């Protein structure tokens, strides 16, 4: 971190929410119990695919202690939800398409009574054969799960001329990659509270990633004026994309309308969360990549199929982003790329940190490693040779107008200690059957929404009687640490101590709509929105000081934590408290707003589903692994993370993101998968869903390269997702470097690695 003249920006500021989270004193919304509360439960479908012939709730209703039993008949408005297309029923009417489908709701005096009542609801199903393979779902033999067929979306990007490209090539690689159904595995499962206030207003307290959109989805289902609904979506026990879509908000709202004004609580068990919650899309990626002898990439042909499960949620956007990113941050002149988002009866897939890029990065970065090996080239050299720079054209044919840090991250990788001493590290094995290897991979991830989706931010700043500022931003802190960044930006620009800033997030009554906490956008967007609001607050304070001391505004100076008026009698001090008192006495507003539109590309690539984006964050990962060739176990020993996040606003926060992302990437590569069989979840809970613990966490070093992004707040971009992407391929490449096997079906479990070793030994 180079020297700067800022008090907070670029400084390691401890997270404001850390003490209460680390000590456990923070109460999440699902931790609360209220007097007079009732428990809500959801009846999920018994089968992955079935027609509902009838639903009989009479036995459940007559159970003592039951407050209400609701079915599709009790939905006052539209029976559906979904961020893009509302294809998921709130409560199933005639058909169920996955075991996560909700069929009925119960509210009861206790959780046990609610659970028992759920078991008393009689649903007469006619079972249908579930569609559990995405390729089969696309075929004409498969039953149509939705009105318009099983292909929810099909995106295409073409550039250059493929025919001649493969003829000119010296190296051609063609492989198929399979990726796991990763679970967000947040600490707080889906849940929350709903209550109908005495005046008829609905209050829904439920962790989410976009309170304003959740409110609109609730309003649609309830046929209710959204202004009559308050959604509080913060604090959150982790989200990672898994709380972007509606989770239980609409169920809470429906039950609250039938609970006689009593608060109703739903909190999914881990087992129900596994079944009903969204997951990362499992992909099949077929990739064919061509290069010349000198390492110049010539062509890339990709066909990716994403299993979105029973409902679309954000699946269309996920496959579009995957195809936009599937050639890596390189300039490949000829590409033929297509992606399909396909309905099946396998649960539901949706948003998840990385948003489709993880799956395709694993493919292109494995191919880069294989090309380097075939050509006898250094893998970093090969990447440097093909990486695009600002002002150049990417593989999908658009010109990069914003900062591009790929080369800097690769140069940093080349000179870092782990890479320079890699031969020494590889030799340093602890037991004869262990093999060590080092892998590298680089990737990128768009910041903000694609073309076609308005992207804006808004913030409020309010001066309070005690001389502190309340900064309101709609964007929730889902764990990334944006609240601290918001406080830093506000304190820096207002020229006050950070202790004078309170940040309010995720509450439709307290904050303005500032868009989602997704797409690595909230630091950039919220930061810019605060920066847009600050001048208004400074104007309010300056005018107040000027009126208070009867001098012209130009005689007001902004000091640290106070304002100075240059009067005839010398310098007079105005504290924030005094300024508040003046504004209050004169009935002047103490609250200002700032609004901001994210810059966008102007021309959309036809059929691409929203590409290109205007801004991207870049990152290179190195990983050192040790493979036990007796058992196939892989241990990640060291990780180097080299992000280009633009200017770093909070180095400590960046390290937190880089380390958390690396661990999540390790989990994705080596351990995590929700297994399904015939549409049923085989993985029930954390007994068999394996996420890394501290014993699987290696030494992780973070070396940011800073490429100032002129449009960002203090030159910053976004980093929340790319921190977990290239590490996947870096580990895959390191496993190959160590043991000589390429695992293209993730996760690379001990059994998969062992089998690959065994079949290789048989061949040899």
């Amino acid at each position, binding site marked *: 971190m180079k020297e700067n003249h800022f008090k907070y920006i670029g400084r390691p500021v401890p997270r404001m929410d850390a003490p209460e989270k680390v000590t456990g004193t923070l109460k999440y919304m699902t931790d609360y119990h209220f007097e007079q509360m009732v428990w809500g439960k959801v009846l999920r479908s018994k089968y992955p695919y079935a027609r509902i012939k009838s639903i009989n709730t009479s036995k459940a209703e007559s159970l003592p202690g039951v407050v209400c039993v609701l079915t599709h008949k009790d939905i006052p408005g539209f029976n559906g939800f979904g961020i893009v297309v509302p294809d998921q029923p709130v409560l199933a009417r005639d058909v169920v398409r996955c075991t996560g489908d909700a069929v009925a709701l119960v509210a009861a005096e206790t959780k*046990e009574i609610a659970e028992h009542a759920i078991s008393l609801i009689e649903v007469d199903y006619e079972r249908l054969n579930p569609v559990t393979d995405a390729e089969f779902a696309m075929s004409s033999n498969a039953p149509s799960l939705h009105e318009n067929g099983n292909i929810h979306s099909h995106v295409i990007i073409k550039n250059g001329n493929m025919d001649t490209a493969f003829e000119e090539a010296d190296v051609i690689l063609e492989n198929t990659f399979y990726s796991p159904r990763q679970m967000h595995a947040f600490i707080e499962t889906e849940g929350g509270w709903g209550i109908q206030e005495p005046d008829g207003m609905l209050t829904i307290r439920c962790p989410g990633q976009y309170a304003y959109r959740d409110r609109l989805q609730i309003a649609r289902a309830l046929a209710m004026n959204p202004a009559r609904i308050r959604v509080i979506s913060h604090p959150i026990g982790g989200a990672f994309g898994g709380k972007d879509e509606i989770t239980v908000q609409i169920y809470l709202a429906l039950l609250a309308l039938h609970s006689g004004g009593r608060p109703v609580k739903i909190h999914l068990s881990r087992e129900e969360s596994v079944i009903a919650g969204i997951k990362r899309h499992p992909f099949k990626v077929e990739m064919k990549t061509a290069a010349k002898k000198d390492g110049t990439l010539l062509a890339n042909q990709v066909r990716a199929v994403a299993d979105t499960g029973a409902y679309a949620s954000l699946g269309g956007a996920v496959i579009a982003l995957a195809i936009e990113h599937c050639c890596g941050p390189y300039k490949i002149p000829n590409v033929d790329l297509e992606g399909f988002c396909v309905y099946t009866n396998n649960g539901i897939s949706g948003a998840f940190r990385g948003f489709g890029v993880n799956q395709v990065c694993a493919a292109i970065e494995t191919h880069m490693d294989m090309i380097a090996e075939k050509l006898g080239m250094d893998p970093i050299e090969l990447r440097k040779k093909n990486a695009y720079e600002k002002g150049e054209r990417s593989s999908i044919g658009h010109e990069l107008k914003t900062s591009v840090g790929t080369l800097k991250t690769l140069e940093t990788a080349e000179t870092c200690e782990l890479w320079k001493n890699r031969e020494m590290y590889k030799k340093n094995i602890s037991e004869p059957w262990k093999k060590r290897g080092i892998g590298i991979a680089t990737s990128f991830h768009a910041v903000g929404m694609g073309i076609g989706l308005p992207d804006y931010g808004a913030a409020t700043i309010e001066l309070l009687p005690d001389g502190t500022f309340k900064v309101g931003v709609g964007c929730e802190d889902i764990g990334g640490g944006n609240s601290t960044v918001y406080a830093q930006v506000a304190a820096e620009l207002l020229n006050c101590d950070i202790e004078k800033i309170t940040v309010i997030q995720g509450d439709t009554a307290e904050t303005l709509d500032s868009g989602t906490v997704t797409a690595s956008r909230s630091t950039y967007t919220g930061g810019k929105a605060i920066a847009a609001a600050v001048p208004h607050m400074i104007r309010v304070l300056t005018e107040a000081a000027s009126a208070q001391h009867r001098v012209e505004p130009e005689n007001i100076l902004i000091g640290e934590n106070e304002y100075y008026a240059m009067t005839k009698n010398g310098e007079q001090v105005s504290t924030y408290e005094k300024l508040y008192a003046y504004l209050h006495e004169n009935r002047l507003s103490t609250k200002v707003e700032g609004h901001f539109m994210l810059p966008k590309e102007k021309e959309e690539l036809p059929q691409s589903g929203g590409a290109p984006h205007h801004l991207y964050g870049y990152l290179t990962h190195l990983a050192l692994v040790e493979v036990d060739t007796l058992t196939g176990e892989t241990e990640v020993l060291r990780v180097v993370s080299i992000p280009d996040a633009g200017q770093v606003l909070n180095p400590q926060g960046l390290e937190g993101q880089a380390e958390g992302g690396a661990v999540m990437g390790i989990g994705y590569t080596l351990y995590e998968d929700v297994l399904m069989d015939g549409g049923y979840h085989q993985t029930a809970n954390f007994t*068999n869903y394996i996420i890394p613990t501290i014993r699987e966490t290696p030494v992780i070093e973070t070396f940011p390269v800073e490429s100032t992004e002129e449009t960002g707040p203090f030159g910053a971009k976004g980093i929340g997702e790319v921190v977990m992407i290239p590490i996947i391929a870096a580990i895959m490449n390191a496993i190959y470097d160590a043991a000589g096997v390429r695992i293209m079906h993730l996760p690379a479990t001990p059994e998969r690695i062992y089998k690959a070793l*065994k079949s290789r030994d048989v061949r040899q």
Partner: protein
Amino acid sequence: MYASEIDMLSPRSLLECLYLLENEKASFRLLAGGTDAVVRMKEGKWQHDYWLNLKNIDELKFITIEKDEIHIGPLTTHSEIISSPLLQDHADVLVQACREVGAAQMQNMGTIGGNIGTASPAGDTIPALFALGAIIELTSITGKRQVSAEDFFVGPGKTVAFPNEIITKISFKVRGKHDIGLFQKLGPRKAQSISIVNVAISLSMKEGTKECLGGRIAFGSVGPTVLRAKKCEAMLTLGELSPDMISNISSVAWKEVMPISDIRASASYRRDMASALLERGLYRLIKRWADNERKPF
């Protein structure tokens, strides 16, 4: 019946507990550390009349040595076993197995008696008890009986204990300084996982050599109960435990196991891993023996 309606009885002594168990009209579940019982309760699998909470029976918590025998009370927690100097000296294989049980919280709550009583084929302490040749004491109001660990388990979740009996003692012979042991576990990750395969090894070594005078090997998670690998054991004494010899012994291990396929691993992988873990374990054990002896072999 709701789980919250199950009453809990907390006897203050073993005698009181045994007396309660004589009531044939009521069904009971013993509650030791609760690390397994609470999970079953949440799953709604157990529908019994009473929890019999053993927490207050202090007379079942002990680690003692009497003449040439070590005695462990069934309510001894995994953490207490791990931190016992006596067991570190005389039951290294058990100490290591307890270290691999779940997370620190599980080790603090879970007990050795509970691990035995649950009788999971993947239970981590059970192979170690096989390797130590442990004897399990069962007590009812009418008397006591001794059952060897190997005869104690009937199948997954099933033991020879009658409903009116409880485990009151686990005992085994004191180990000499030439007796060495090791526990190896393969799980889907290093920490907090259920074993895909585990193995406990106990060897009696001839001083100053790599020759083994006899030993026990027991595998977990590769059969309906923990299994002794008697063919491998027989081979231990055939000659010096060189890397080649270790490899030969280990290659026989797959013939001793009959694992299932489940979502954690396939049967064929488990079978191969029985050999792999034994090879890795014997190699590490002999290396430790050689390093400790500090003598050139």
